[in-house]
């Protein structure tokens, strides 16, 4: 933290958890809110762990729900688009 900026307003765990998913989804746009959230993570082991877990779970979900279109669908679409 740079000098003069160390007066970040404290938030409680409730507020941190409430913002957790927006944070994970890259939707915590307001820099002040982001700073408060990250400041809380640096000082709260419980919320830090939870964030780690949720991040890992999110990655697992992403990996698991990824599909590859079957080859026959690729062929079908190529023909379809040619005929449009």
């Amino acid at each position, binding site marked *: 933290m740079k000098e003069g900026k160390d007066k970040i307003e404290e938030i409680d765990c409730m507020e941190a958890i409430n913002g957790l998913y927006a944070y994970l*989804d890259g939707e915590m746009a307001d820099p002040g809110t982001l700073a408060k959230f990250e400041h809380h993570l640096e000082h709260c082991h419980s919320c830090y762990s939870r964030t780690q877990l949720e991040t890992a*779970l999110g990655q*697992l*979900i*992403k990996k698991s729900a*990824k599909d590859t279109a079957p080859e026959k669908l690729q062929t*079908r679409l190529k023909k379809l*688009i040619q005929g*449009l």
Partner: protein
Amino acid sequence: MTSTEAKTWFGQSIEGCLDSLYGLAMRLTRNAADAEDLVSESVTKAWSAIGTLEDRNRFRPWIFRILHNCYISDYRKKSVRPVAYSYDDYAEEGEEDDITSLLIKQSADFLSWWGNPEREFANKLLGKDILAAMEKLPEAFRVAVVLVNVEGLSYDEAAEVLGVPPGTIRSRMKRGRTLLQKALWEHAVDSGLISDNEMKGSKP
């Protein structure tokens, strides 16, 4: 741009997001044959509506929206299957505080179990377990999780796909994840991934 160029561009754009389209179709129809038909039908509809694509950089949300609409009008009726949680129990118009306490309460057992490295959760819980849990989610939450968590759309883009305000996506992501964790916990209990000892004192 000539119509040939437009068609080439369209074909390349489809190819570029085909896996995503198929994935979304699979999560919606939960059936490979229907998913393939849904993608094909959506591609035909998309081409005939190409004039409505205002910004080429937003091709993905645009075509996802077409696919989702196509699913609702032509496929949803025949693919309706019972889900584990009723949508009404988790209606999205709840107070923010309710959602937060739900988040804290419902996920606690799952997270404390999962967070214990001795249980090697990551090794035990497989992709098929995640998919089984996702299937249990009410459709509105399942789609939000797929669009944001799996496909990496912003809340704005997901809102565009579903025709809802971004705030609705925000709350669906919270509840969707909470429900998913609940479903994973139940799945882990049902399939014996969690021993009786581990369950003691942490039964939801």
